[in-house]
């Protein structure tokens, strides 16, 4: 999954969906994850990146990450990676 291109994320953690006009706020780790999603990292790459930086275990982070992805999906902020056959 990746963050929709038109969704704006400010440094302070304010998300704005220009299609619906909705705004959301996320904490600094949320911003980091959103930026990793925007860069089209895989889930595993995101796990590695966060676990290398913060003292938490993988299962705790996986659960929180899935919850976060669930909220982003529910609010229509994500889209699937384009499949490439090349």
């Amino acid at each position, binding site marked *: 999954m990746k963050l929709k291109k*038109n969704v704006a994320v400010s440094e302070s953690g304010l998300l704005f969906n220009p299609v619906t*006009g909705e705004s959301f706020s996320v904490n600094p780790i949320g911003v980091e994850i959103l930026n990793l999603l925007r860069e089209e990292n895989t889930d595993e790459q995101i796990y590695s990146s966060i676990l290398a930086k913060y003292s938490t275990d993988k299962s705790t982070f996986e659960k929180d990450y899935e919850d976060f992805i669930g909220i982003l999906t529910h609010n229509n902020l994500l889209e699937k990676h384009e499949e490439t056959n090349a």
Partner: protein
Amino acid sequence: MKKQTLNIAVTALNAIDSPGPGVSVIRALKEAASFDTRIIGLSYESLEPGIYMHDLVDRTYSIPYPSAGIDSLFERLLYIHEKEKLDVIIPNFDAELYPFIKLEHKLKTMGIHMFLPTLHQFEERHKVNLNDFGKKYGISVPKSKVIYDLNTVHSLPSEFSFPMIVKGKFYDASIAYSIEQVKSYFNKISAKWGLPIIIQEFIHGTEFNVTGLGDGTGKTIAAVPMRKQYITDKGKAWGGISISDEKMLDMTRKFLRTTKWRGGFELELMKNKDGELYLLEINPRLPAWIYLAVGVGQNIPEALVNLALGKKVVPFKDYTVGKMFVRYSWDMIVDREEFEQISMYGEL
């Protein structure tokens, strides 16, 4: 080069909790790049705040209510025109549009220009006719029924599920969760706005609005969609944000192309959870939040004036997304003599 100064008359100076568009329209005109303005306010009530906003309104005249008839309005406009040499009138109330549309040709021969929907467009988009309008132009609208008699209310549950919307022919809408509530709203709204009452299917979703301008040939001159962010208990937007939704813009362009709409408008839209758009209402005039359109780069009132004067207007191509308006209330201190002047002499 010195710009031309136009004498523009504007109605709906009631910048109150259910605001008329007049003051916002005037602010837009004051920022017009293509002309300067002298603003003549046209008021119905002595306490319309715009009357006392002397930095925006140069002079105000009271005009008769639409119920007084077209001749009374014409006579009064004739008097005002003699004094002020009006170039353009922008009426901003639904209820006054009928007499102004009827007078458009006559006023034009006197040098007073307007840019209003045709009588056919005005009638066709009426909420009483919304079902037929949707069918004719292939636009999704909620199911609705026009009722004239309180006794017919009992048959509604066989056609509509609760909740349902009870609407007045010009203004007011309430959500009814039982037959008793439908009856109560029927009485309340019909006492204020008359019959008929419109019963409309309730669409669950998020409300959006689009304002814009059609040139009368099917071309879109301007279109700006907005999501209401703060809604008062009267359902009025007290804060909103410009958005970029292609579906909404497509529906707007389709509306203008198929109806060849002439003039300003506001579409009230509902988007359900599946992303389907429904057209709830077409307001045949500019909305009270029109100044947001100016703030995002489309001065719609200025373009409307230029169209009224027969000038060529280049359609707006884009606007800033994510710009907000936040409305506020403001107490003015007014001398009693000013109130007396407008109340007793109808001029200020």
